[in-house]
């Protein structure tokens, strides 16, 4: 079975802190994604990566950066956390390829910025 693991299920951080959210997948997938989920807004794409050291901005990249130094790990970085970044963060991965291969999600991280 594909396994996508996010480092924390719940996280509380202070305004202004630098925050790292980690995601690891064990299936050698090329593509990895970070989404945030907010009530009434659904899932919105922050960043995605299609290979090591390769990244593209999603729909809402402002205030975030990412790092992909190894194929299995995709990190989301909040450079200076703010209260409007309080949200549910979801990581996903899938193999690269035409025909839109199936994507798999981690368990999610509920981040609260106080």
């Amino acid at each position: 079975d594909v396994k996508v693991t996010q480092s924390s299920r719940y996280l509380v951080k202070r305004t202004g802190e630098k925050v790292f959210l980690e995601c690891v997948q064990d299936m050698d997938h090329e593509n990895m994604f970070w989404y945030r989920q907010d009530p009434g807004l659904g899932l919105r794409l922050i960043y995605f990566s299609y290979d090591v050291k390769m990244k593209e901005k999603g729909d809402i990249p402002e205030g975030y950066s990412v790092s992909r130094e190894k194929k299995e790990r995709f990190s989301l970085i909040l450079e200076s956390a703010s209260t409007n970044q309080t949200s549910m963060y979801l990581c996903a991965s899938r193999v690269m390829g035409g025909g839109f291969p199936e994507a798999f999600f981690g368990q999610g991280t509920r981040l609260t910025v106080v």
Partner: protein
Amino acid sequence: GIQVEQSPPDLILQEGANSTLRCNFSDSVNNLQWFHQNPWGQLINLFYIPSGTKQNGRLSATTVATERYSLLYISSSQTTDSGVYFCAVPGGAGANSKLTFGKGITLSVRP
């Protein structure tokens, strides 16, 4: 970009009832996924279905790609079916296309 609409936004059922959840999309797609978000927030894969019909226990899904919609059927609903149901489609045609989600359908099954 492609638009995905799900309906109804909210659904309340009595245990044992059947339901149909709908996903419409604005452009042709080469695949579609249905997910169930459990109470702890994790998205669980239900179906990966570009066209046709698939069944898994009490759940089944049908995608009619030419008419740009997909349906998720839940029969004999149980309280554990409660949660949010999402459909997602490719945001583009390329091999690295992102997933585009609908806003979800919140299902509550009452005992």
